[in-house]
């Protein structure tokens, strides 16, 4: 342990088994929920948690869902989410969840059982090299080989997971270790010579950035998941308001700036609004906060950088800076701290007024295209309409989780998120099947909140078994299934790029979702008529104590617009037929 200093608590030590130490550690970390699934290698730990009442264990139906639920709990609360799985298949089932959290930088600790130390490497029953398997998709991982290392390792795991750029940490614990006895000493603090996250931004760079912002003629603020994770939203709003600059959020960043505020120009990227993408492309000074210029956000990087602009990039992770796009003013630091410094410097400036009236006029013109308009129908339910009504009925105050596909984009486009940590989706890895376990994590995080899981009939079936978990814990989640009987996003790409050859994107033999929900003791509803959408949503959300599965039969061939096709520039969007006509008419 020369590598790090762990200062111990003053409390008298107690001798106990490794399993009890694990449980004590989790209680020291004030963990409220552990999402897990028992099995051979973790039996000692399950016995230890049976005998305590510090945290509550939530029994899922599949380990993938345990990790997703812990991940959503972390996204919703900002605390570290915890999952507990057994060795071998339990561990590999958890991998998709871990990779999902990794791609979106979510702080979780996954404790996995391992075969006993003498059996490691012997191809033992339910053995898998968990540290090896997860290495590319964790922030860090540990294999604990001695009972005395359990407490310091778990302490480090929580510290690493939640500091700097957050991420998942796996602690793999062999079964025999959990039966061995040691004194329980939980370190109070951790210091690691090899890991020292930078918090404060460089003051010279921050000053330079503020100067650039004040002199901008066509400014733009672009924020991502990092702003939400770093709890910087309030400081960002203050800054944007003081400067009167337009703000766009990435898919991961929604809620980082209130969507109902007039300075918000909508989400940007592949399915971003016309005004957000145009402003991003044509701005002269860009402030990027906790975002990483990824392929779904800026489209073709050559096209994006072909337009000259000065980029200020603020991120806690130095490796996110100048990774895809060269930046002019890099600022490494905690987003909240740096934005607060910016606000302070700005407040001291003599002349705080910015001149971007012309720019706003241009943005208003772009807004006039109304790129999110869609053709309402009396006869068939439009998916966009369902989301609009969901927003109204929940008064914009629900936790909305989604799976992956068209429904995810519609939820992102049409639900106006005013608060951070309310929009929970898998933006990085794009994991189908997260929606329902994510909703579980949110409902545990905030038991009285309205939680809506917007999903598709493809995605929901990837973790449908969790209907059982929801019944066991009485979670009053509302599933909003936009059922178009197609893997919609795949179908849309096949329509656009594969001449309507709908290869394997139509799903036959769907279950009767209403009956399925009812079989678990939930309420099932099928909505086929546009006129019934609002009433059904109201009825569902009025049933505050019930899980309601709403099967909306929607337009089968609706597409997500605008769309920046693969390899195209951000300003080269394909617009919806309505918006395209409106543009033609104006020319």
């Amino acid at each position, binding site marked *: 342990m020369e*590598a790090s200093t762990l200062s111990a608590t003053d409390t008298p030590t107690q001798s106990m088994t490794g399993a009890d130490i694990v449980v004590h550690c989790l209680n020291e970390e004030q963990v409220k929920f552990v999402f897990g699934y028992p099995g051979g290698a973790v039996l000692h730990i399950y016995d230890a948690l049976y005998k305590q009442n510090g945290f509550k264990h939530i029994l899922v139906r599949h380990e993938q869902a345990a990790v997703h639920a812990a991940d959503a709990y972390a996204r919703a609360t900002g605390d570290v989410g915890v999952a507990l799985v057994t060795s071998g298949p339990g561990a590999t089932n958890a991998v998709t969840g871990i990779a999902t959290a990794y791609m979106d930088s979510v702080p979780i600790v996954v404790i996995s059982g391992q075969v006993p130390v003498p059996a490691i490497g012997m191809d033992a029953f339910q053995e898998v090299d968990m*540290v090896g398997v997860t*290495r590319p998709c964790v922030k860090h991982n540990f*294999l604990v080989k001695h009972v005395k290392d359990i407490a310091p390792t778990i302490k480090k795991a929580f510290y690493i997971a939640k500091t700097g750029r957050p991420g998942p940490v796996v602690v793999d614990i062999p079964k025999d270790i959990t039966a061995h006895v040691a004194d329980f000493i939980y370190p109070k603090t951790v210091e690691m010579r*090899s890991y020292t996250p930078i918090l404060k931004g460089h003051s010279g760079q921050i000053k330079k950035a503020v100067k650039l912002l004040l002199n901008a003629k066509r400014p733009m603020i672009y924020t991502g998941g990092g702003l939400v994770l770093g709890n910087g939203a309030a400081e960002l709003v203050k800054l944007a308001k003081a400067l009167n600059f337009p703000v766009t959020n990435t898919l991961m960043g929604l809620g980082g700036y209130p969507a109902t505020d007039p300075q918000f120009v909508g989400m940007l990227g592949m399915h971003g609004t016309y005004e957000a993408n145009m402003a991003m492309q044509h701005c002269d000074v860009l402030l990027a906060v906790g975002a990483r210029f990824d392929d779904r956000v800026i489209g073709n990087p050559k096209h994006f950088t072909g337009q000259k602009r000065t980029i200020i990039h603020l991120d806690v992770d*130095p*490796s996110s800076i100048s990774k895809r796009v060269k930046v002019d003013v890099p600022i490494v630091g905690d987003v909240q701290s740096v934005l607060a410094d910016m606000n302070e410097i700005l407040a001291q400036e003599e002349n705080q007024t910015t001149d971007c009236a012309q720019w706003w006029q241009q943005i208003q013109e772009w807004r006039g295209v109304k790129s999110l308009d869609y053709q309402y129908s009396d006869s068939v339910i439009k998916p966009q309409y369902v989301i609009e009504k969901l927003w109204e009925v929940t008064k914009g105050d629900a936790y909305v989780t989604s799976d992956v596909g068209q429904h995810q984009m519609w939820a992102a486009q049409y639900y106006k998120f005013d608060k951070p940590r309310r929009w929970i989706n898998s933006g990085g890895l794009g994991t189908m099947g997260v929606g329902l376990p994510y909703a579980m994590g949110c409902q545990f995080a905030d038991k009285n909140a309205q939680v809506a899981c917007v999903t598709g009939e493809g995605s929901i079936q990837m973790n449908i078994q969790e209907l059982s978990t929801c019944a066991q814990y009485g979670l009053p989640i509302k599933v909003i299934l936009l059922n178009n009987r197609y893997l919609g996003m795949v179908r849309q790409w096949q329509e656009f790029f594969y001449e309507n050859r709908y290869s394997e994107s139509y799903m036959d033999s769907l279950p009767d979702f209403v009956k399925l929900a009812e079989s678990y003791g939930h309420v099932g509803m099928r909505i086929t008529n546009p006129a019934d959408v609002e009433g059904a949503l109201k009825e569902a959300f009025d049933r505050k104590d019930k899980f309601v599965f709403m099967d909306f039969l929607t337009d089968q061939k609706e597409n997500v617009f605008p769309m920046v096709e693969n390899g195209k520039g951000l300003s080269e969007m394909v617009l919806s037929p309505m918006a395209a006509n409106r543009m033609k008419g104006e020319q």
Partner: protein
Amino acid sequence: MRHIISLLMENEAGALSRVAGLFSARGYNIESLTVAATEDATLSRMTIVTTGSDDVIEQIIKQLNKLIDVVKVLDLNDGKHIERELMLVKVKATGVFKDEMKRMSDIFRGRIIDVADNSYTIELTGSCSKLDAFLEAIDRSAILETVRTGASGIGRGDRILKV
């Protein structure tokens, strides 16, 4: 461009695979990689020889720094440095080759460290390019076997990589 990256990392199980995994996962080149514990047994020192554009090298350095076990990273190409690699070459030592190999070894300041009936084993130390040059200089058909350690590098003078 070719870069020599030096790093200090915690001497823990799996640390090497984190570095190797990073290079393969992100598609970075590795020409060579050497690692051993330092005088402080808790630390390993690694030398990685890689190639890439300035942008790629910048990313490699940042990604290495991001690994939790990595304590310090230094791009030796940022300043004056020395590199050395050790090579053992087993060559034919029959007929004309017998004198030829002894002579070439002397020219390159190698040492013959094993003499057998039909072969010599030559030990050669130097920069990677010097070792390449030796292999170019001798008759290819005389080479029976080569083994190289990969480069180790160190900064000149006051450039010290230490915790």
